[in-house]
């Protein structure tokens, strides 16, 4: 199995790393209903359509892709906030996708989520204190915290809340306040505090900074990194901002139309993207240096994301691919395979990845290429 080879490669590179989460063949399909009186299902939106990934403990996995590619749905399906249609989500040896309601509820302590819109994700009628104590009431303090904060539940809950506030950089005075009284960055800190207060192992951050001012984004990203070091967290960071993901991630997965098209260590991905979609995405990042910006070659991505209810045959990207080759691309669906020969440790879903890397396959149409300004 390719997965086994890959984790073996990771093991040799960074010592023995335990895989905390492994997702296998995950699918989330939403039925499209129609009908006046009786609903009948006329099709499915394949939001997530067969994703495999492996996340070692303590690492950050960045998930990128344009809106509608299924990255948020994937994140929610991992936490089972969305029911997976098929596949396995193995978290610390247990299949989340098959857990019954009560064990799942208990398991939720260990997997938390940070939401995109901090205001919408906080109940407007709850004060910060009540927001942060609620999860503790439901699950109780984690074993690790009990030693520190004592066994008396309400006093130790409050002590834990105060220390958590301190940790995310909010004053004690925030306790009695309500979400609408804070700024965007402060609200996201509250959201982060709520996710972290249960001492989770895995935190999925769904666009954690895209609703924030640029000046605050860096602070929140730094906070997430600091908490990771402090609490030994494993992150999945979902974002469309490639700069944010690069800064925080160890490994990056690029999604297109419900599937992973490329997965690589973050620096390697930015240095040399291999999948045509990733290449196009990277070339869309402007470089803040007019001289370099003018000299580089850019690739235009034409058209919109095809409908996930009716994905294209063959390679899902072939309708927009600037490197498309005749016949094979629109008939055979490429598997996400590791390029053991040319780029070990990287997985790409493209028939011609090696040829693109070596330069044998080039952009087929001159219109799609923006030549450097001379």
């Amino acid at each position: 199995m390719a997965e086994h080879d890959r984790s073996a490669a990771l093991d040799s590179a960074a010592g023995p790393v335990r895989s905390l989460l492994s997702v296998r063949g995950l699918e989330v399909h939403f039925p499209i209903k129609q009908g006046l009186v009786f609903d009948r299902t006329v099709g499915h939106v394949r939001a997530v359509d067969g994703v495999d990934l492996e996340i070692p403990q303590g690492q950050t996995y960045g998930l990128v892709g344009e809106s509608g590619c299924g990255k948020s749905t994937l994140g929610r399906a991992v936490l089972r906030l969305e029911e997976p249609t098929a596949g396995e989500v193995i978290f610390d040896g247990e299949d989340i996708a098959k857990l019954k309601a009560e064990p799942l509820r208990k398991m939720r302590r260990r997997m938390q989520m940070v939401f995109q819109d901090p205001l919408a994700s906080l109940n407007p009628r709850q004060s910060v204190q009540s927001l942060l104590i609620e999860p503790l009431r439901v699950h109780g303090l984690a074993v690790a915290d009990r030693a520190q904060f004592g066994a008396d539940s309400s006093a130790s809950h409050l002590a834990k809340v105060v220390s958590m506030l301190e940790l995310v950089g909010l004053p004690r005075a925030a306790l009695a306040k309500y979400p609408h009284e804070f700024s965007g960055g402060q609200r996201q800190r509250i959201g982060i505090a709520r996710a972290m207060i249960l001492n989770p192992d895995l935190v999925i951050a769904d666009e954690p900074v895209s609703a924030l001012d640029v000046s605050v984004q860096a602070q929140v990203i730094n906070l997430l990194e600091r908490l990771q070091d402090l609490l030994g967290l494993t992150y999945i960071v979902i974002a469309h901002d490639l700069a944010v993901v690069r800064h925080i991630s160890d490994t990056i997965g690029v999604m297109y139309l419900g599937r992973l098209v490329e997965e690589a260590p973050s620096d390697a991905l930015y240095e040399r993207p291999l999948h045509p979609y990733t290449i196009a995405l990277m070339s869309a990042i402007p470089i803040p240096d007019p001289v370099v910006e003018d000299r580089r070659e850019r690739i235009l991505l034409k058209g919109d994301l095809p409908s996930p209810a009716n994905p294209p045959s063959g390679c899902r990207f072939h309708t927009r691919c600037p490197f498309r080759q005749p016949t094979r691309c629109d008939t055979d669906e490429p598997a996400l395979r590791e390029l053991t020969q040319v780029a070990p440790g990287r997985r790409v879903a493209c028939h011609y990845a090696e040829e693109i890397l070596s330069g044998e396959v080039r952009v087929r149409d001159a219109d799609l290429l923006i030549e450097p300004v001379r």
Partner: protein
Amino acid sequence: MTALDPAQSARPASLSALMGDGMSDEQGTSLWRGAFERLSRNPAAIIGTLIVLAFVLVAIFAPLLAPYEPAKSQWIDQVTPSDVPGPSPGHPLGLDPFGSDLLTQLIYGARQSLIIGVVSTAIGLLGGALLGGVAGAFGGRVDTFVMRLVDIMLSIPSLLLAVSVAAVMGPRPGAIMIAIAAAQVPVFARLLRGSMLAQRGQDYVLASFSLGLRRRTVVMSHVVPNSLGPVIVQATLTLATAIIEVAALSYLGLGASDPAIAEWGRMLVKAQDRLQTDPQLMLLPGLCIAVTALGFTLFGEALREALDPKSRR
């Protein structure tokens, strides 16, 4: 990402000092407290509240305020088929067609309107909230079934529904309240269900689930409290309508059967044939109904504005 400052992430204490500004007061402003503050700055709300307050006070303290006992017909000998005595020193608004003091009847009428209005709206709210809450909490087939039931109720004009219920129940004391409540149930049901559906799609509900809260807790302590705002506003507005409907049903002869109980709607009916000779008999109860309804409407509208998140400053 050169803006990232590693020094900042290393010092949580300095960071908390940094975030501390602008949070000097220890007490937060909750949603309802904010709404109350906005209400107290709104002139329409103040007028509405004053009218409602006056109405409630008059209704409660009717025995103290009224100059005479109600519906005693002590002065029936002064009433002739062609003339009802007008204002005089003993009777500031004159007599009614049955020889009772008109002012006394009006004051006691407020009591009747308040009781019927509040009780019927409470019953309607309870019934509607129950139906809407069940539909909103369970969704799916339960939702479809309950809402079709509500649609059927809604397809009957509300006054017609009230009239039919009152007619079927006969001249029982509670009949008019049930009749008015029956017409309100579908409105409240739809409102609460829609409001709950909107809240259920919010991120904070998803967040509650991801924190591991039980479904029951999520619905009862997160979804329902956040959905009640529009329902409460509707209840104050419905109170105004209920008072008018009480008058309408009494006018149609379906109101409280005991003629000794003063009631504005019935006063209108009895004054009908004397409209030309003694218009005050009709105008005064009519005015009472109109002003009270206006008061509740103003208050309800102001409450709606105060609770609307978009008007929050």
